[in-house]
């Protein structure tokens, strides 16, 4: 269980850092990439203009978060399915093994 405790502690620390920084300053929590854009503007004196646009942009923040949630859900279900399947398999193998041992034991004692 040690690794589980470490993981939970790190996640709690991460959340605590977020709470602390949120409460001490005024942050936008925006994606960090309008910042590189600002850096590019800065470096080129605003002369660089993107020459291509996304072929499709989610029409709203809601649709965007839907698609992000789908991405996460799709990935999570695959991980959960296989880890659960393996766990069941291991358990069944263990039970089978125990059953066989018991069977051998019974066979021996009845002899």
């Amino acid at each position, binding site marked *: 269980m040690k690794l589980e405790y470490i993981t939970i502690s790190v996640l709690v620390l991460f959340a605590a*850092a977020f709470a602390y920084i949120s409460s001490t300053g005024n942050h936008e929590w925006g994606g960090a990439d309008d910042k590189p854009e600002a850096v590019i503007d800065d*470096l080129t004196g605003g002369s660089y203009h*993107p020459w291509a646009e996304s072929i499709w942009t*989610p029409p709203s923040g809601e649709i*965007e978060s839907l698609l992000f949630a789908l991405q*996460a859900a799709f990935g999570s279900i695959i991980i959960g399915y296989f880890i659960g399947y393996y766990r069941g398999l291991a358990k069944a193998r263990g039970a089978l093994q125990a059953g066989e041992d018991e069977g051998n034991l019974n066979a021996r004692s009845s002899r």
Partner: protein
Amino acid sequence: MAEYVCHCNGDAMHIMEGFLPLNWCVFWYALSLPVVVYGARKMSGLMKNNRDVLPLLAVSGAFIFVLSSLKMPSVTGSCSHPTGTGIGAILFGPWITSLLSIIVLIYQAVFLAHGGLTTLGANTFSMGIVGPLAGFLVYKACMNRNVNMYAAVFLAATLADWLTYLVTSIQLALAFPAASGGIVASFEAFLAVFSITQVPLAIVEGVVSALLFKYIVQLRGDVLLKLNVTSPDVLKKLKESSA
């Protein structure tokens, strides 16, 4: 310009659509595509000859899917997301991980306006090739020195994540050298944006990767041996201690 600003609410790692000059787009595509193609060949070999590792391949791809969808707040007051490439790199090596990464990058470029198709080559190079390659090498080096396996996974996954952003900074710096100070000065400017934000996220990714790896060790140690990820002795010790 205002029109672009509203398009650019994406994540930090992926260079946005149109934000690299054409010659650089071509350059990074030329570097990335051969790796991805070779990865595809390796993967199809795996699918033919080694079918019982396929569930772990699916889990590795799914892990990249989940982690790169999680935009997390960082200490700098802005958001970014992890990459999730460490597990794939350790289990299947950087070649196959480059293919897994490009699938996620295409999904995000097409459906989420994150990253872009013109910058796909560059983004694949940072997230799918350099990050996983570094993670893979770090893991192997740790194993050769008998470092605890979960610590090795942590280091590999953390570095794979963080180096992705380092490479992104280099790519942007090469394309946009500063008028005074050149590439080095702009590298520092981009790094200031990416690197600090990413440190806590990379650590979280490393810890979560190590935890997932623990379950893989417990449940499918046999597959780890088959993939040459570890040795029977190490595996036996880990299972006994079950950290």
